[in-house]
């Protein structure tokens, strides 16, 4: 992977509570598990949940990184400000949001752009954004390779906002091919059907994530991505498929790999489920 530019995936939505953070975490975990050097950046600067959802603590945040890069860009090393999330052999880096809201106010768009550009060593950078067209978010969408645009279509105002957001992205000249529409909490029994949303948007939904409230709740409580605590959940499988689509790998190769791993006993699926000591969170590695 040396010499390749980082692929930046912006996880964006136009309503809060759509599963952006869960999606960003599981994309980062899946990409890391695939062997890619991955960094997850929590850009919900005021109320970011990545650290809470991964049960991580850190002394350094994006606010420290900003101070350092503005002081001496030449000698700035992003690694000094990242927190590692480790689970077994796989790990990914996290750039936490500021600890205090006042620090969030001091974050400057140009500095964040510089910080993201300094992450050259990563194959993938996953950005967890807020549900608003802010200057920061627009700058990040500009930088990104793909926009993972998440929506939950269980409520007409949410569908309206999804449509408004999509039209705005197109009006802002983001290429259609760059915008990956991801429907979260897909439910066949809902009165708003995916095909109706597709008709409204005039395009196909790129990926559907099924609903699994219990799995998500358990994952947050355990402080682990779904693949490390609920591997058999349909939602976890769907996240793997999404990772495959972004890495251009086939589902078959993963199934074969998992079968091989189970056969050789290198990774035990049940150990994920029951939090076997083979799987470490950052907390228990500290």
């Amino acid at each position, binding site marked *: 992977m040396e010499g390749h530019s980082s692929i930046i995936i912006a996880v964006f939505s136009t309503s809060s509570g759509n599963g952006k953070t869960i999606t960003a975490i599981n994309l980062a975990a899946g990409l890391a598990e695939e062997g890619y050097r991955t960094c997850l950046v929590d850009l919900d600067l005021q109320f970011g949940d990545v650290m809470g959802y991964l049960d991580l603590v850190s002394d350094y945040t994006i606010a420290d990184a900003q101070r350092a890069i503005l002081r001496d860009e030449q000698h700035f090393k992003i690694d000094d400000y990242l927190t590692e999330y480790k689970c077994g052999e796989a790990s990914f880096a996290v750039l936490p949001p500021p600890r205090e809201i006042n620090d969030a106010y001091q974050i400057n768009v140009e500095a964040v752009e510089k910080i993201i550009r300094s992450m050259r060593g990563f194959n993938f950078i996953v950005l967890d954004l807020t549900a*608003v067209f802010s200057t920061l978010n627009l700058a990040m969408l500009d930088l990104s390779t793909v926009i993972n645009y998440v929506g939950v279509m269980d409520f007409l*105002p949410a569908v309206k906002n999804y449509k*408004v*957001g999509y039209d705005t992205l197109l009006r802002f000249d983001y290429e259609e091919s760059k915008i990956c529409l991801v429907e979260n909490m897909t439910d066949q029994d809902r009165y708003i059907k995916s095909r109706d949303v597709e008709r409204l948007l005039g395009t196909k939904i790129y990926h559907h994530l099924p609903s699994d409230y219990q799995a998500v709740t358990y994952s947050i409580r355990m402080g682990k991505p779904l693949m490390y605590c609920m591997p058999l959940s349909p939602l976890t499988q769907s996240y793997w498929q999404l990772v495959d689509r972004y890495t251009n790998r086939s589902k078959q190769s993963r199934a074969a790999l998992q079968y091989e791993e189970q056969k050789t006993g290198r990774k035990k699926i049940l150990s994920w489920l029951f939090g076997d000591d083979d799987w470490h969170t950052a907390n228990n590695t500290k």
Partner: protein
Amino acid sequence: MNYRVILVERDADMLSRMAGILKADDTFDLASTYHEVDMALGQSSVFRPTLFLIDMDSADDVKYIARFVKAYPQAQILGLLSQWKSSTAEKLLAAGASGCILKPFSTADVVEALAIYKRRGKPLPTRTLAFFSPKGHSGSTTMATVLAIELAKLSGESVGIIDADLQFGDVAMFFDAVPRHNVVEATHDINLLTPAALEHYFHKVGNGVWIMSGPLQPEHAELVEADRLIEVVRMAGSLFRYVILDLPVGFNPISLALAECADTDILISMISSGQEVRHMKRSLKMFHMWDNYGKQVYTIFSGVHNCTESHKRKIEGELGRSVTLFLPEERRIKDVAGSGRLMKDLPEGTPFIEAVAKFAGDIISGRR
């Protein structure tokens, strides 16, 4: 209805002009004119006036209003301003006047101002309530709109909702309304408006509730300046006894400015991921100072499955302060709000509605 009018104006030319306007309309019987407010206060009793039109360009004259109200309880009072001043209008309303109009006026302006005041409700200062949500997806728009309906229903007074979620506001959709104007136009025009003119920027959704919708496109949010929006909010106080502000998610210049301008801030967060108490505590740090200065700050948790006293105490222990309200999850509310039937099909009698109605009752009675 005929009005027996006392007109008070310092400027002789303006007085003559306005007197002429009143004399030309049979609805008004101009009993007397004065240049000085204190003279009018002392001498008007002989004319048994029913309406005072009083020059309020001098801020010092506001102090006379309470004395007029006491001396002439049967009369209505309108302040006359050369330029709109929210602070003067608010002081007049608080003192018991019926509002303010710009001079020189037409007789239609006077009649309209009196009609607005009658519809507005009791002669009491406006309550401005701002709904703030740290992370969104908290049901704050649902709570704000249901509270508006309950306030109007229980008090018989008028309620205005301003959708200040400038990128993705849903208030109009909850009422299946397609307003002709929105907050961008109102903030653009505000320096040229009077309350009567501002009323046209609101959309009547019925039963004493009016809404001002958000922009048509997210990028139009940039056209809304915080200080002008505050002027809209303050002028809306002349139209509505209760002004409800549905703020954008998180802290930004608009949400901070409006939260500061409101007399009551309602912080609302939905129980779902387990991080809500942390978000609420973080938000309260920002509101802490206002809380100390007498502004009312309330905390509400929505989507609560286990609405028991012990659960509430547990959350209060984690939060370090009392929780004002636990709102249970109510699927039917989401259904009627999502399909624009909030006004028509509000599921009365459900725990959610009863909790909001009780909160509305507390606001009306002044307990909150």
